[in-house]
């Protein structure tokens, strides 16, 4: 495994050189000395880095990240704060706010009236985790979850916060988490990309997503997230024109190869050979991808588990099921985004709808992975880009309120892949500040990489003279949430 990855990397860096050797017919002995990073001649930094991978035994092999785009309210879902109900309408004390900068949406507000959740909570599982009545299915898998109530971030607006979570930096074209994993670990399936992206939308107030979230940044573009859809054309340009049969395509590619061989003979350029191979890979993808994305053969029990929505392409439920299938087929990182959590006003009604759409499929994914024996090696992450304020944005009434963005504390959960179930971190009675075990976004990234067998300080890429990493210059592994 280690050797393979190192070789693969070296290969990529020196592809032309490598291909050229092949076309020269140099024997495998020469190839060997060419491929094995050689201390004497000085290996490139990246080779040295990837050669050491994994840095230690990985706990997880794959990741499915259920990103709840727009920032779900922790106060309605996991962070139970009865005191906020008691103090309904009272102003948030300055001693708690402590100069927290505010978004432009509430900066003009003269009062910050506390708003308790309209929803009831109960305790579930061995850890006695508080979970809202909005999430009955999630409550049912409480024993699988590590609920982290003490996440915090630096950004207070969606775009930078989302970009921060996905790339480790608020601005700029940095590689996404999935790209780093693809770079570090490669793919397990030669016919599918290592990093796939799935999009869906809820009915709540939405914030867009953008392709820079799954960009390869300065890494090679093979590490870019490939957008999949659960509809009829799962990958861009995958489907042949309606008039083209499989046999027809095969025949065309054979003629194409014959023509390209002519060019190879004349120019001796190894890239021509690579081009021939890429067409073959494309042809294989045309078979492999529809097989993976086809849910028609899933048994009734699975459809029932995810709910009937999973048969509707483009829904969150359909994407959860597709995520399981991609993961099962060796895709290293499946990234979902589900929009609609941005509850500035009408939060109670909107979050109800969002939970109705997502609760069952999220829990189904965990159960499904478990029943297939995959949960142990698949890390599942659920969460948004920041939290929401404990005070109301806009008018506060008995049965309606809104919440602004809150970076100082919010809740995510993780499951499977070496995660120790339980509840981690605490916030104060106002649900405003963290009181124990804070987890910064960089810490989160460091921990995820660790679970995948990588030291976040060592997984680097040199670009424009600087060694970049997902965790920038920070990040501490949260050992307490990792299974021994």
């Amino acid at each position, binding site marked *: 495994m280690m050797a393979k990855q190192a070789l693969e990397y070296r290969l990529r860096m020196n592809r032309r050189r490598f291909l050229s050797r*092949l076309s020269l017919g140099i024997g*495998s002995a020469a190839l060997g*000395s060419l491929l094995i990073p050689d201390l004497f001649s000085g290996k490139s930094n990246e080779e040295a880095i990837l050669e050491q991978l994994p840095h230690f035994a990985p706990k997880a092999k794959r990741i499915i990240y259920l990103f709840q785009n727009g920032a779900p309210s922790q106060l309605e879902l996991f962070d139970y704060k009865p005191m906020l109900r008691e103090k309904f309408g009272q102003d948030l004390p300055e001693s708690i706010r402590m100069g927290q900068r505010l*978004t432009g949406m509430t900066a003009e507000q003269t009062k910050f009236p506390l708003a308790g959740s309209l929803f009831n909570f109960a305790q579930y599982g061995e850890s006695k985790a508080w979970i809202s009545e909005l999430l009955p299915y999630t409550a049912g898998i409480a024993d699988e979850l590590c609920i982290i109530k003490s996440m915090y971030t630096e950004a207070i*607006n969606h775009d930078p916060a989302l970009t921060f979570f996905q790339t480790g930096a608020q601005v700029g074209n940095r590689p996404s988490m999935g790209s780093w994993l693809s770079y570090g670990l490669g793919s397990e399936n030669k016919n599918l990309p290592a990093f796939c992206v799935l999009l869906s939308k809820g009915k709540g107030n939405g914030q867009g997503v953008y392709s820079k979230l799954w960009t390869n940044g300065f890494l090679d573009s093979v590490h870019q997230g490939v957008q999949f859809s659960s509809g009829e054309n799962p990958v861009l340009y995958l489907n042949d024109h309606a008039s083209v049969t499989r046999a027809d395509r095969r025949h065309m590619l054979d003629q194409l190869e014959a*023509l390209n061989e002519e*060019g190879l003979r004349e120019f001796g350029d190894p*890239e021509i050979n690579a081009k021939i191979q890429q067409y073959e890979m494309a042809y294989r993808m045309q078979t492999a991808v529809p097989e993976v994305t086809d849910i028609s053969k899933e048994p009734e029990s699975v459809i029932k588990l995810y709910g009937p929505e999973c048969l509707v392409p483009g829904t969150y439920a359909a994407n959860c099921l597709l995520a399981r299938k991609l993961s099962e087929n060796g895709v290293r990182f499946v990234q979902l985004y589900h929009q609609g959590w941005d509850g500035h006003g009408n939060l109670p009604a909107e979050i109800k709808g969002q939970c109705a759409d997502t609760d069952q499929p999220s829990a189904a994914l965990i159960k499904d992975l478990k029943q297939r024996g995959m949960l142990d090696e698949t890390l599942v992450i659920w969460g948004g880009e920041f939290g929401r304020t404990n005070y109301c944005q806009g008018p506060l009434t008995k049965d309606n309120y809104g919440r602004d963005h809150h970076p100082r504390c919010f809740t995510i959960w993780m499951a499977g892949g070496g995660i120790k179930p339980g509840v981690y971190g605490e916030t104060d009675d106002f649900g405003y500040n963290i009181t124990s075990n804070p987890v910064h976004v960089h810490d989160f990234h460091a921990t995820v990489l660790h679970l995948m067998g990588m030291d976040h300080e060592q997984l680097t890429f040199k670009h*424009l*003279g600087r060694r970049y990493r997902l965790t920038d210059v920070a990040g501490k592994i949260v050992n307490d949430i990792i299974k021994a």
Partner: protein
Amino acid sequence: MRKYQLIAFCLAGLLACLQFGCSSESQAESFELPEIISYNFDIRPILSDKCFKCHGPDGNTIEAGLRLDLPDSAYAPLKETKGAFAIVPGKPDESELLRRISSQDPDYQMPTPESHLGSLTPYQIELFRKWIHQGAKYEKHWAFVLPQKAPLPVFKTKEGLNNEIDYFIRARLKEKRLEPNPTADKERLLKRLAFDLTGLPPSEELMNSFLADDDPDAYTKIVDKLLDLPQYGEKMALHWLDLARYADSYGYQDDNIRTQWAWRDWLIHSFNSNMPYDQFVTWQLAGDMLPDATKEQVLATAFFRNHKYTEEGGVIPEEYRVEYVIDKTKTYGKAILGLTIECAQCHDHKYDPISQKDYFSIYAFFNNTKELGFEGDILVSKPAKKPVLTISDDDIRNMMQFINKKDSGNIMVSVMGERDTLRKTYLLNRGAYDQPGEEVSPVGLQSVMKYDTLSLPKNRIGLANWTVSKQNPLTARVFVNQLWQEFFGRGLVKTSGDFGMQGELPSHPELLDWLAVDFMENGWNIKRLVKQIVTSSTYQQSAKISKKSLELDPENIFLSHAPRNRLKAEWVRDMVLASSGLLVKDIGGPSVKPYQPDGLWETATSGRGELATYKQDTGKALYRRGMYTFIKLTVPPPSMMLFDASNRDQCEVKRLQTNTPLQALAMLNDPMILEASRVFAQRLLESDTNAQTNIQNAFHRIVCRKATKKELAILLKYYDEQLALFQSKKLAAIETLTVGEYKHNPDLDSNLQAALMKTIHLIYNMEESIVKT
């Protein structure tokens, strides 16, 4: 994904290696050190890579008080090791540095294991030993020294030496024991030249006339002809659009429409009118501040306003205003100076002599505009942000006829404009907008070139003059290198965006300097420089790769043959449209929305704003050049992205060149290419029904050369098979032809047309079709 096919080979290699052994010891004696060790070329790259992180220019992270970038510090007694010196010139054995880098003791060795920088190789250690032995002489960083014309290398014969470029290239080839290729055949040379000068395949007429012209000046005549075409400006503009991060939307969140395209029209025009580069830079940097600035000069400054703007409700305006100034600073540094000055935004530069204060001194030049951090959310979105240049129909008629306006009404463009009162600039601690430190004033980078405040005002005019001064060692080098990269795929300095110490050293330093000086001496004349490059024999070589050159120089750094580079994303599209006759050659104007797979914008949008749904254009707008395809930053055009176009999120000076299965899928199934194949077939059949003639013609237009007998045989056989399948109804001709909006000709035999269409489509998919060869 291309890597997988090769893993089998790797494993074979791995096994072989285990068998034969690849230990470092077995080869340890065989390296040869250069006779004279150069600080710039041999030592500094290692220092920069392995040492400067803790012992370099960043004043905040100097360990043990030792700086290895300055001789005074490196030669001085060490503060933490009594009686020792890091470097004792002439005495390697007494130099602590050498002891540390060759130590295996984790508590003693350098770099430390915790730094994860990796230890030095035996070769590198020996370099240091010899360098210290030779006196450990420091030199100023090569790129910060004024370029000078070195004398031309001497050759016995002038054969094959078309101009100075060839002298320098041949000299290096000789050193490497490589020989240059002979001149490429005329057909391929013309294709290469046409794409390099216009981004389009040569016209049929041009191909025929060039082939028939036996005049020794035939090539030069073609060069002049192409340089005079308006498509030259379009071609040149594309690279600059990447630098300028040009896009048609604001980029954040709801990502609404903006109208910067009039600046793009100006850009094309300025290349076509061959505006000297110093003026070109001056106008873009400070056109608004020139005496009696014209609207055209103000329009040029839109270069600095093309970056993203947030319309997200609830942002803190100052945070974003600062972000915009940072973007301008970064773009200026990378695109024009070739420096990664943004590294000094949060701390002193770790590798280059640029302090955080230097950084904010450049930042200060851009900090005095009338720009706001936030003008409101999507509900009040306008197509330009303040300050805005309004261009009326009269303006276009009277002085800016190059603007291709489609409708009536004024055009709004975001441009630069100074405040009346000076906004003070503070160094921002950690680069954070709300952490102001000491006050700084605008001044150029002193380590590059002195900023004489007696002659240079402390504003963007001053910065422009400083930038295009002939005493500035970077500006000409950086541009010449970018241009070289356009033609050869790789700059003389490979890291075209980083001429600093962590950047790569030039492969041909004398040539780079010669070209830079010559460029300045000749009035920063861009067309002249282009002509110099394409008329060199180096450029005109054949692209055939010999075994010897593959072996000795697999990356073709020394140019023993012409490179075979794939066409840029936009030109793949242009090639298909032009060869099929579909291309609409209008220059400039607003961006257009051609075919795009369904649902891309819709699944990613918040649902707000004008760009929530993709409203595809119809008619002529479907067939414009790739550079006019609408760029919505949050969902850039997929067919462009697949072929490595810039996503325009940030200033980009160099595109990657990849070869992926997704590209193969796009070539096979993009409706634009299928439609072009259909229309091409239709046009050919309208004048002739002879299959062989039609296939030969199609091949000639697409690949830009005559098909060989063998190629023709393959294609004819394929055509015959397809025709038989269509005629026997095993394949559906009408269904095959059902693609694209371009009008059909019902009088044609659909079987013939479908068979020819599929044959043409096959030609489009040939590797050579999208490669300059």
